[in-house]
């Protein structure tokens, strides 16, 4: 298991880490969330559960105030679908494809694999919302209408996105080269 550290860049909320591990190229973006925020989010969930259970357990029956508190509780639950993200990583597997992972503080990991044949091109895209404008890295996929975001939960700065984009481009070009040399055996040998 050879691990090779290639670079670490840190800026504001995000830290970028690039290393390779037994042939796989791994790019990681760590999100700095303070411990207290994580704790607060768990406490918030507990309060929410208590708020919802209290009218049900008090055996008063469904009055308008309890309906309100349940509705409010559901709305807050929706907002609190804030699962704190620990890191997002991109694992480039030569000749196979790219694996996009989201690691949460709760220990859960969400993984998506994109086979090499599906990816047309990686893009650095400027996204404009009604209040702001930011860079994002997305994959253009074959036969799909929507772009796939590489970093779904975080908005790292563009200086951290550029090395990931370059690595993805290099990976795709090397695959293209390998395929074109395989598909053209009758080409004269160049010396």
């Amino acid at each position, binding site marked *: 298991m050879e691990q090779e550290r290639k670079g670490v860049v840190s800026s504001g909320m995000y830290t970028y880490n690039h290393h390779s591990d037994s042939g796989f190229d791994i790019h990681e973006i760590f999100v700095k969330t303070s411990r207290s925020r994580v704790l607060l989010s768990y406490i918030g969930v507990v309060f929410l559960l208590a708020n919802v259970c209290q009218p049900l357990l008090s055996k008063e029956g469904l009055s308008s105030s309890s309906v309100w508190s349940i509705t409010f509780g559901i709305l807050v639950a929706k907002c609190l679908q804030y699962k704190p993200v620990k890191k997002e990583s991109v694992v480039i597997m030569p000749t196979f494809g790219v694996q996009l992972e989201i690691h949460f503080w709760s220990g859960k990991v969400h993984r998506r694999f994109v086979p090499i044949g599906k990816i047309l091109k990686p893009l650095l895209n*400027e996204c*404009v919302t009604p*209040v*702001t404008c930011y860079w994002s890295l997305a994959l253009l996929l074959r036969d799909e209408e929507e772009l796939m975001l590489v970093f779904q939960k975080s908005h790292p700065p563009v200086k951290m996105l550029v090395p990931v984009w370059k690595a993805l481009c290099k990976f795709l070009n090397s695959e293209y080269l390998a395929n074109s040399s395989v598909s053209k055996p009758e080409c004269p040998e160049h010396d």
Partner: protein
Amino acid sequence: MDGQERKHRILMVSDFFFPNFGGVESHIYYLSQCLLKLGHKVVVMTHAYGKRSGVRYVTGGLKVYYVPWKPFLMQNTLPTLFLTFPIVRAILIREKISVVHGHQAFSTLCHEALMHARTMGYKVVFTDHSLYGFADAGSIHMNKVLQFTLADIDQAICVSHTSKENTVLRSGISPQKVFMVPNAVDTAMFTPSPERLSCDEIVIVVISRLVYRKGADLLVEVIPEVCRLFPKVRFIVGGDGPKRVRLEEMREKFSLQDRVEMLGAVPHAQVRSVLISGHIFLNSSLTEAFCIAILEAASCGLLTVSTRVGGVPEVLPDDMIVLAQPAPEDMVQAVKKAIDMLPGIDPQLMHLRMKKLYSWDDVAKRTEIVYDRAMQSPKTDLLERLPRYLTCGAWAGKLFCLVMIINYLLWCLLEYLQPTEGIEEVPDIGPIHAHLESVDDLCETQGN
């Protein structure tokens, strides 16, 4: 003078831009293209048009931000006063803008962006493209908004001397701050027909929106009279609007179906082909700050007959245009005079003269001078700027001061929530060429 060779980074703001077609839209587009040729950096900000939202690049590497604020009335963004501040601030910082240039008094996005830019300390320039009245309720409110924006502007631009007078009277701004830079026409696109049309049958072309402001009612009176007096004359009417019905009725009433051809809405790309099929261009507008349409007609070699309103007398030399009062009898006399003048008109000569008189490059150079002057104006802070708003009126002045103070506090809040260092600057992308290093590597390996 050589010290002012530095290049500006300009943000053009308006609600009106491509894919809409019109005078303001083409002005912004052509001016931006010519400024890019002069070496400046230009970015355009407008609202989203349907699904067209986000960042787009148009010809020449001109970057356009289609901000996803939905238009609510006549292509204007909903006036929220403060809600556009975050996106305007983000764009100003990431593009490293030095001058903000707003267009058209009727555009709410323009007024808001200029207000925010001013609060943040950027230099602002405003161009007014239209004439407005003073008496009706809509004009009074519009003029008040204009007063607010122009109270603290660095420089203003108007498209004709009449428009300058109108803007100065409406807003109370000092005339020294107002420059006059006329519009121009793309003479490469509007060229005359290679063969001269025969003078057996005289064709009069009308292309305009068929609305009250553009004098469609005058047309309804003039066309039958001209057809009666001059049997050789035929009309081609292009354009659409609420008054089209009146023109169709006029055609029916006087049985002019074979002498008046109604084309409907003419796409911008086909305007030239409609113009070169005629000898005379008739413009019956009741108000015009400049009128690019008659420039296009003159560039195509047509003799123009127009109402003497607004800035129209300033546009063309006397031998290329016949002016009349906006009354049917005068216009008929003017058409008669034009028909008599027709044998002496050479379309090619006219086109060459227009090429020398009007060009967008000239407009861009003159606008550059305005930007240089704007950059020289001194830096002011909030306390120095507030008294300028108090001159706007007894109650309005205090209200405007309050709005600017709230805007300033909002700016401080945004600086705290999203510090300037967190907004990354965008690299300048030049004209599109292959810049992927891996593509170069690919070419090298294939060539080996």
